[in-house]
């Protein structure tokens, strides 16, 4: 056997293997689903079979409703997350600079990050009415407190010698912020964004069931009103897939690249 025959580039192989490992259980679940529905002759109102769901899915794609629901949901998540990040990061850094302030505010941030998300829906609808404002506010809440807390954590765990080194090399206060505190906290910030968006996505679906007339959550809720179980199941699958794609193809690599490249340990 020649040497060339057994050598292969390990990276693409590993990626494919990872993908196979990830997708196999999901595909098995689909097979199991179809088997059970067929074997037990399940009422389609209770749970439809795979082809029915695929047809329903195709219908929502063909009439353009899926794209408008997905678009509305993604837009809200993007806006809410963006506002959450740009407000939470400066606040987290400002708090992290002072040990006293950070000790004082940590419990508050932790409290609100547990509360963040769907618990805000009722009051959000009172403040903003039904629609974009209330839902974006819920997303913002889910992201804001977790990112602020993680930023604070990131800044306060930057080793003291790094700050001392920067001070001895002559940084100004502003340079300390931009060249030491912000990059030093970045791995935690990214972790915060990833966790926060996870909560935001769940909160979004819940908020859309209550507070709007477009979006994936609304799609679910509407389908229930018309007893269209196949659309409900399809929408649930879409919700899960979008999150997995977002998380695994965007957020996880982002997190990994900041942490691994700099050889920093994830600290939260």
């Amino acid at each position, binding site marked *: 056997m020649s040497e060339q025959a057994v050598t292969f580039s390990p990276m693409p192989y590993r990626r494919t293997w990872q993908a196979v490992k990830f997708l196999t259980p999901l595909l098995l679940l689909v097979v199991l689903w179809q088997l059970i529905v067929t074997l037990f002759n399940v009422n389609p109102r209770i749970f439809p079979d795979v082809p029915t769901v695929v047809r329903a899915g195709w219908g929502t794609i063909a009439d353009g409703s899926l794209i408008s629901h997905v678009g509305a949901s993604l837009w809200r998540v993007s806006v809410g997350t963006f506002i959450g990040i740009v407000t939470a990061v400066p606040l987290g850094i400002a708090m992290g600079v002072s040990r006293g302030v950070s000790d004082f505010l940590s419990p508050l941030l932790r409290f609100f990050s547990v509360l963040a998300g769907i618990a805000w829906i009722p009051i959000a609808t009172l403040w903003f009415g039904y629609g974009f404002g209330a839902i974006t506010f819920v997303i913002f809440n889910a992201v804001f407190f977790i990112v602020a807390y993680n930023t604070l954590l990131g800044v306060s765990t930057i080793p003291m010698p790094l700050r001392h080194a920067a001070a001895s*090399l002559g940084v100004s206060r502003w340079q300390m912020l931009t060249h030491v505190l912000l990059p030093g906290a970045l791995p935690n910030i990214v972790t915060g964004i990833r966790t926060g968006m996870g909560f935001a996505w769940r909160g979004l679906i819940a908020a859309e069931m209550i507070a709007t007339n477009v979006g994936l959550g609304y799609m679910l809720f509407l389908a229930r009103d018309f007893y269209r179980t196949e659309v409900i199941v399809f929408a649930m699958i879409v919700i899960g897939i979008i999150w997995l794609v977002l998380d695994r193809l965007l957020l996880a690599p982002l997190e990994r690249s900041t942490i691994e490249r700099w050889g920093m340990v994830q600290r939260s």
Partner: protein
Amino acid sequence: MKSLALENLSKTYFDPYRGTQFTAVKDVSLNVEEGDFVAVVGPSGCGKSTILNMIAGFVPITSGRILVGGREVKGPGPDRGVVFQSFALFPWKTVSENVTFGPKMRGVGKAERAKIAEEYLALAGLSHAADRYPNELSGGMQQRVGVVRALANNPDVLLMDEPFASVDAQTRMTLQEELTRIWEERRPTIVFITHDVSEAVFLANKVVVLSKGNVLEQVDIPLSRPRSWDRLVEDDDFKALSNQVLQLVRSA
């Protein structure tokens, strides 16, 4: 480079566990001439790190003064470069970005910084590692970067806080020899903190022995330069001086 003077320097901490005052440094006066190489040794708890932290401006002084080139210092500043035991390199910056960090903060342009990086990486024998990140380097290489990062910022005084304590013994000897070579070439004013007596004697022109926050004795080290371990390890003067300092430290 400039001279460094400590005048009646004291540091008192409040010990929250005992509820009492603890004096870490008591009335220390010390002169370091411009271009001199002074090592400070003493058992742990003798106040040597506290003194360095006060000179660097990381901890406030309780009483006394610190003068660099005749000017009193307050707080950290680029006139006093520091080399840390933990290296303290910025993990998100490459080796050359670390080395030129100080100049960049001062507003030195890109072309000039490239020259500085080239010069100091060559000095540290790290030209090949310019674009690597600190975590890709061994401890010894990281501390070489730490040393030239401080030097590249042109400090008046170089403060070194047990800089070679966290590398392995062989690497440590190499780094010590390289530091003496750099000192002979450029004559920076160095204050070197260590608990390792032979390291202090090998490197410095003068060894200051501390005891309980006080200067116990100053020992001149008239060994010829360049110094290398191959030569000094068998050298009777080196052995005698090391022994003398060791006795002082043990009595401290």
